């Protein structure tokens, strides 16, 4: 074959190459964009307004209009900006700066046009059958105590978080025990009651340590999960799961050893 100028592109080849180019560039764009989306979705360390759907549903529902932010009378809520490490444009709050004041009428929830903040999640039906907003049902996060840095655990008297808690003696209770270090004082330490705590962050705001030793984390981050294989036998409701639960219920059979128990005493290794 003689080396020379290659023949001009045929129509078909030109078309195929152009299509390939388009697909290639689209893939490049899609991959970059996907990487960013995945990364942006991954951040979790922030608190959502009361009545927010779980985080993945919240992200698909929130239209980022800021009506909840405008409704908040304490300027607690902010819309995230570039660099805040919160999915862009969505509402959040930082408890150490301005916590949620747990307004009775929850002004941030009803204006939500898209259902990302769902009034049903923070409403109770009373005996008369009317639905009423109840901020006590909010689950914005949960307060966690760092017992290593909380000065009450050192034996120093402090109950700032307990006093500031809007659900005083319900969401935070004080446990007392003997102070073994001094031998003659009591330790009065705060303990968070997980079912009651709404995650408003009042405690984090007032904590006297340099960096708050009681702080609110989103439930998804803070909570463990025992798994459905554990059933509380002492709890009638939980026990009922035995009847309804499907899957995960296989029985493990360990074969009995053929040796006599005494033989093991005479074993060389013993």
């Amino acid at each position, binding site marked *: 074959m003689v080396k020379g100028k290659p023949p001009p592109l045929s129509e078909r080849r030109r078309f195929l190459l152009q299509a390939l180019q388009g697909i290639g560039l689209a893939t490049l764009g899609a991959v970059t*964009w996907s990487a960013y989306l995945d990364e942006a979705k991954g951040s979790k360390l922030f608190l959502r307004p009361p009545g927010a759907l779980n985080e993945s549903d919240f992200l698909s*529902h929130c239209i980022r209009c800021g009506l909840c932010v405008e409704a908040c009378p304490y300027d607690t809520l902010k819309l995230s*900006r570039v660099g805040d490490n919160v999915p862009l444009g969505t509402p959040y709050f930082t408890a150490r700066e301005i916590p949620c004041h747990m307004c009775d009428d929850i002004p941030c929830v009803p204006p939500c046009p898209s259902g990302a903040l769902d009034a049903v999640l923070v409403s109770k039906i009373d005996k008369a059958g009317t639905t009423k907003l109840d901020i006590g049902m909010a689950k914005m996060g949960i307060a966690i105590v760092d017992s290593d840095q909380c000065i009450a655990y050192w034996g120093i008297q402090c109950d700032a978080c307990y006093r500031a808690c809007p659900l005083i003696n319900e969401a935070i209770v004080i446990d007392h025990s003997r102070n073994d270090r001094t031998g003659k004082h009591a330790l009065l330490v705060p303990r968070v009651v997980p079912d009651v705590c709404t995650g408003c962050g009042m405690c984090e705001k007032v904590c006297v340590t340099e960096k708050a030793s009681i702080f609110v984390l989103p439930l998804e981050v803070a909570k463990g999960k025992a798994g459905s294989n554990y059933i509380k036998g002492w709890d009638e409701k939980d026990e009922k799961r035995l009847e309804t639960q499907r899957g995960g219920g296989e029985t493990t059979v360990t074969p009995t050893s053929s040796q006599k128990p005494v033989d093991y005493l005479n074993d060389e290794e013993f």
Partner: protein
Amino acid sequence: MGWLKKHRFLILRRLTQISMIVFYFAANAWGWKVLEGNIGSSLFLGTIPLADPFAVVQMSAAGALLGLDVLIGAVIITLFYAIIGGRAFCSWVCPINMVSDAANRLRRVLRINEVERRVVISRHLRYWVLALSIALSAIFGVAAFEFISPIGMVSRGLIFGIGFGGAVVAGVFLFDLFGVKNGFCGHLCPLGGFYSLIGRFSVIRVKHNQEKCTLCMKCTTICPEKPVLHMIGKRSEFVAMGECTNCARCIEVCDDDALNFNIRLFKQQDKE
């Protein structure tokens, strides 16, 4: 007076763009009830919901069963642009328009348009980005474009504080200035693509009168969506392509009254 007449639509456009931002800002700062929220979704006069239909499409693709308010709001906006305004959102409402117009202006002043080195991308790219937005929304379960939209960033930024979003806006400006002429709005933006598609059959349109045209071509120089003016000097007809943003710059620069807004009713057009 001459200057005013030459910029009458431009002044009106800036007026609508800026007054919307002022109303949004006032709603957040002082509790005015004229227009609350932002460009993604708002509440007009405290009662009428408005919503960005493209955001709603993405969110629905992401699997969200949305609240009635945003759905109604999206329908209202869709009907308005589909029946009346065409792609008017881009030149009369969108805050990025001022950024890209500024870049364009500077391009003309600095004569960057005459520099040989060019970056060429297709105007159809926006439809690819549009398709990709919806596909990625479905895959990741979030409204994909809303995560990167400079439009949302600016709109929220002007109301709630912009932060590093300013860098993104600067990016759009630099891209339009040194990269591609009308690069963002005319080539990339899927929201513009979306409104081009739904505004295709709107009633308010620019109409060209070929008999008056002197072929000075000022209109095609100023037009941010040049291909839509393909009929200039050739045929008297409506600017029918959906990509026209009804910005009316062509009407203003024309010294011969060969371009004007007109009502397009399809029955009449058939007779002509």
